[in-house]
């Protein structure tokens, strides 16, 4: 038997195929929309007079770009994959399907309402990543609770004795996000400087306790399945879960640097910023050790290159985060576009690439339809070159900004210094958007599109008995 594991189709009931497909299609639509907005925004830097109109203005569209990419694309794509992973690892179909469908509908209602209100200038006080007004976020949290119900029921009804590590991460992500969302929207402790503290905690945790946990969770399933090889160390995965949970919520305090907080509070943040290297390095080490001496399989796979880039950016982006927390470097980089580069290294290089890797790995196993080889390769290279150029342009441009300020030049000198890098960023953004159009075509081909017989996976006989 020399058949690659990627040639086999999972035995999945039709409604679960429809569920996974619809989550992915919905997420892809929001990816296209939010990044089209992103491209428009990036061209406003070189052409500030272009599209002068309140509904197309930078100040309103910026929040639409970030929120829809976070909550319309990445959340939904990874939730769909998480449900599929839970069903496979539990050995049963997705349980509580009504909740899963309801969750998907609510995710979309929240994103639509959020987009409309933000474009009308109605927002939650420009608090980054929680710009949606409270009743839109309430719909989003309801979506999280619904999807969580389906996920939890599936894992609770599993036929396996042990809960596979993927489900630890994904279940955790949902629990943390529900708690965080409630914490972020209660106003009583959010006046003046108090809100600064809550915002720093929220911003940090919305990324690290939701997207990171979801992405790591699906990777712990997708990677071993693609290689047909167990994860190098399961115990490292468990260690990563607990260290992420204990260290990550504390380091949000490194955003409090210029506020009058107790000294030990800041010291603790620095200690745990170093501590965060443990889950990051142990996690990436674990993934790369799982891939060791299998580089030919990686090269020939549709999905594995995406996971390799995603894990590499997890390592780079998170390590960069620790370094950025050091005060001496913050004096130059803080408030510059370097930060925007960092957020794209993590939310795009890491989270989005893992979401793509998981979709290319798992969706064809569910639907029995593979994406076209050429289009998948194009998607990979356009996105990889695009995001790398994007991060490099903004890292250099941001450094130029910071150095111009430090040199004591008039402020406009920092704008002029960054201008060429902003133009380069816009071109890099176009590459990324083009990759998304190709990805959308691939999603179409993997789901509802016409599939040629040679592109179909072979259906595997139903399992005799699963214990």
């Amino acid at each position, binding site marked *: 038997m020399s058949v690659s594991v990627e040639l086999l189709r999972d035995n999945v009931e039709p409604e679960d195929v429809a569920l996974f497909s619809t989550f992915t299609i919905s997420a892809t639509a929001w990816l296209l929309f939010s990044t089209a907005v992103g491209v428009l925004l990036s061209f406003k830097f070189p052409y500030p007079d272009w599209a002068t109109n309140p509904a197309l203005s930078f100040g309103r569209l910026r929040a639409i770009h970030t929120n829809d990419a976070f909550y319309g694309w990445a959340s939904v794509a990874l939730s769909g994959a998480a449900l599929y992973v839970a069903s496979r690892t539990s050995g049963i179909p997705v349980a509580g399907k009504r909740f899963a469908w309801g969750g998907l509908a609510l995710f979309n209602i929240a994103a639509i309402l959020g987009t409309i209100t933000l474009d009308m200038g109605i927002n939650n006080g420009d608090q980054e990543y929680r710009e949606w007004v409270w009743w839109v976020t309430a719909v989003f949290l309801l979506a999280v609770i619904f999807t969580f119900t389906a996920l939890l029921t599936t894992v609770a009804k599993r036929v396996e004795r042990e809960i596979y590590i993927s489900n630890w991460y994904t279940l955790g992500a949902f629990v943390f996000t529900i708690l965080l969302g409630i914490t972020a929207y209660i106003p009583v402790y959010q006046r003046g400087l108090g809100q600064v503290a809550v915002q720093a905690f929220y911003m940090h945790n919305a990324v690290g306790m939701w997207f990171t946990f979801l992405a790591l969770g699906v990777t712990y399933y997708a990677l071993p399945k693609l290689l047909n090889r167990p994860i190098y160390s399961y115990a490292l995965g468990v260690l990563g879960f607990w260290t992420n949970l204990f260290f990550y919520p504390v380091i949000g305090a490194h955003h409090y640097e210029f506020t009058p907080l107790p000294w030990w509070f800041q010291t603790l943040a620095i200690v745990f910023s170093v*501590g965060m290297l443990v889950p990051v390095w142990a996690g990436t080490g674990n993934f790369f050790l799982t891939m060791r001496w299998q580089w030919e399989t990686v090269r020939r796979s549709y999905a594995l290159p995406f996971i390799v880039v995603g894990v590499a950016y997890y390592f780079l982006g998170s390590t960069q985060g620790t370094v950025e927390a050091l005060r001496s470097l913050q004096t130059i980089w803080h408030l510059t576009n370097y930060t925007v580069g960092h957020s794209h290294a993590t939310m795009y290089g890491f989270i989005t690439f893992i979401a793509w890797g998981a979709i290319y790995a798992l969706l064809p196993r569910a639907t029995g339809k593979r994406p076209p080889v050429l289009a998948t390769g194009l998607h990979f290279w356009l996105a990889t070159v695009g995001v790398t150029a994007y991060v490099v342009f903004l890292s250099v441009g941001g450094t130029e900004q910071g150095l111009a300020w430090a040199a004591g030049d008039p402020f406009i000198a920092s704008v002029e210094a960054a201008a060429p890098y902003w133009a380069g960023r816009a071109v890099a953004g176009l590459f990324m958007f083009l990759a998304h159009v190709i990805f959308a075509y691939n999603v179409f081909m993997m789901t509802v599109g016409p599939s040629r017989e040679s592109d179909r996976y072979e259906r595997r006989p139903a*399992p005799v008995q699963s214990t």
Partner: protein
Amino acid sequence: MTGWAIVLVGTIATLWSIGAAIYWTVRPGETDPSHPKYSILRSDR
């Protein structure tokens, strides 16, 4: 004083987790074939 104690506990936790990470990287163990890391590789999972 309490602040010091918390920083101390945090430092110990960090050092312990570094040790644990190194240990499991060097010795992954987990050779029991019924371990969940193997069972998910079955064709029905």
